[in-house]
């Protein structure tokens, strides 16, 4: 009886390990349009409304955590206003979420105006999903192909470029952030517009990007701003990103002046707390 139990347990374990390895191999080997990718997309499409509903239902919980964080950060001010805080606490809890949303949306509109993004048809979406593992820097927003979103379109928040669309469903889209190891952004840095490719410096670090392939003699220094390069007339392929979107600010330069120099930058956008984002649905300007 014991032997039978052990044999059964080991057989099931072996079967599941084999299933995992087969799935892994098949998924890794097939193209993005393959059967397993299709099943994954189909299941995600079905589950998106559930996730969106859960995200909205659980927003008060997130806001409550955010409220606690804000309270701790502003401890000094809270001390002075303790009496008033007690009276206003319940009201603040109700209004906090709306105020934060409003500010972020206003900031988004200001960025639109400052960068002239109005003609790139930005679509504002709410973040409904965030990958829990640092190995996949992805979020999902509640705007999809029904809103004109397509794969490859750039995504910004109220501060800067945050990533690009990598998967689109009817009512939602997956965005891969610029801190994901698969994302490379052509960029220009400093007043002279030195060209380079921006990519993550390492896995799991949302505050450090690196600009590679900049010429060794480039006169760059900490504090210089890095923007998207866009498409130049001599380019054989159009860039996914329009020119002039802010990315970050140079923090340090390793091996300066050599062929292996690495220009480190801190992204302007806080990629750990994203509520609202904008997808630029016409990154090359209005269609003629």
């Amino acid at each position, binding site marked *: 009886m014991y032997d039978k139990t052990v044999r*059964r347990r080991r057989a099931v*374990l072996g079967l599941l390990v084999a299933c995992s390895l087969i799935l892994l191999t098949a998924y890794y080997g097939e193209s993005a349009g393959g059967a397993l990718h299709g099943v994954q997309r189909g299941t995600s499409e079905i589950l998106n409304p559930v996730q969106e509903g859960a995200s909205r239902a659980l927003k008060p919980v997130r806001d409550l955590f955010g409220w606690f964080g804000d309270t701790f950060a502003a401890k000094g001010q809270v001390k002075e206003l303790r009496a008033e805080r007690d009276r206003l606490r319940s009201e603040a809890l109700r209004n906090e979420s709306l105020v934060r949303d409003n500010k972020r949306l206003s900031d988004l509109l200001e960025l639109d105006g400052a960068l002239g993004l109005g003609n790139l048809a930005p679509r504002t979406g709410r973040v409904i999903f965030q990958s829990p593992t*640092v190995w996949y820097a992805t979020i999902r927003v509640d705007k999809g192909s029904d809103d004109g979103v397509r794969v490859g379109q750039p995504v910004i928040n109220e501060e800067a470029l945050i990533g690009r669309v990598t998967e689109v469903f009817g009512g939602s889209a997956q965005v891969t952030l610029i801190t994901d190891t698969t994302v490379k952004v052509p960029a220009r840095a400093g007043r002279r517009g030195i060209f380079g490719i921006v990519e993550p410096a390492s896995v799991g670090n949302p505050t450090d990007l690196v600009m590679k392939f900049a010429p060794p003699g480039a006169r760059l220094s900490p504090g210089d701003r890095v923007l998207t390069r866009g498409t130049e007339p001599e380019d054989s392929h159009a860039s996914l990103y329009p020119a002039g979107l802010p990315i970050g600010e140079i923090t340090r330069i390793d091996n300066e002046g050599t062929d292996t120099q690495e220009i480190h930058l801190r992204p302007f956008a806080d990629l750990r707390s994203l509520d609202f984002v904008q997808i630029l649905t016409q990154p090359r300007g209005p269609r003629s």
Partner: protein
Amino acid sequence: MMTFEPQLLLRLAALGIGGVIVQTAAISQLPIAGANADLSPLLVMAVGLLCGSLAGGCFGFGVGLFFDVVSLQTLGVSSLVLLGVGYGAGRIREARDPEGTLVPLAVGAAATLTFALCFALMQFLLGADAPVSWALVRQTLATLVVNTLIAVPVYAIVRRVLHASLPDDPRRRRRRAYTTGGLSPLSRGVDLR
């Protein structure tokens, strides 16, 4: 060997689906000390401790697969790692039958660390070319600490969800053994007088 009644299977399915949805829709968006809690290894650990290695392994495989599908990640990675986590937790129950109230805390920490390390290893085997930074190590440690702190409540919630469907809940089994003078064949077969 535990028998799987339909009611238990339904509860496990609801627990897995609900856990992954809550994880992706809420907990992943709540940074604590620069990291997030990760419910999946804790859920799998709790099911392994409560139901045994077979159920823990199957539950880990299912949760991992569902997680990979929902997150649009490479299929098979999470399921392979969580399968091992669930099976390991189940074997701890079967081989040791630990009874301390802090056992979920220790096993939860071990499950989280195992999951993080094996997941990272799988990513490198699959060809992640970015270097490992201190930030990744720091985030892994922060997740480990947060998960360790919430391991006991998560275990309690899972036990509460599955309680009615568990044929031999460890606490009930121990209580029964205590009140009946022991269920071990050795204690029953030997007359100590």
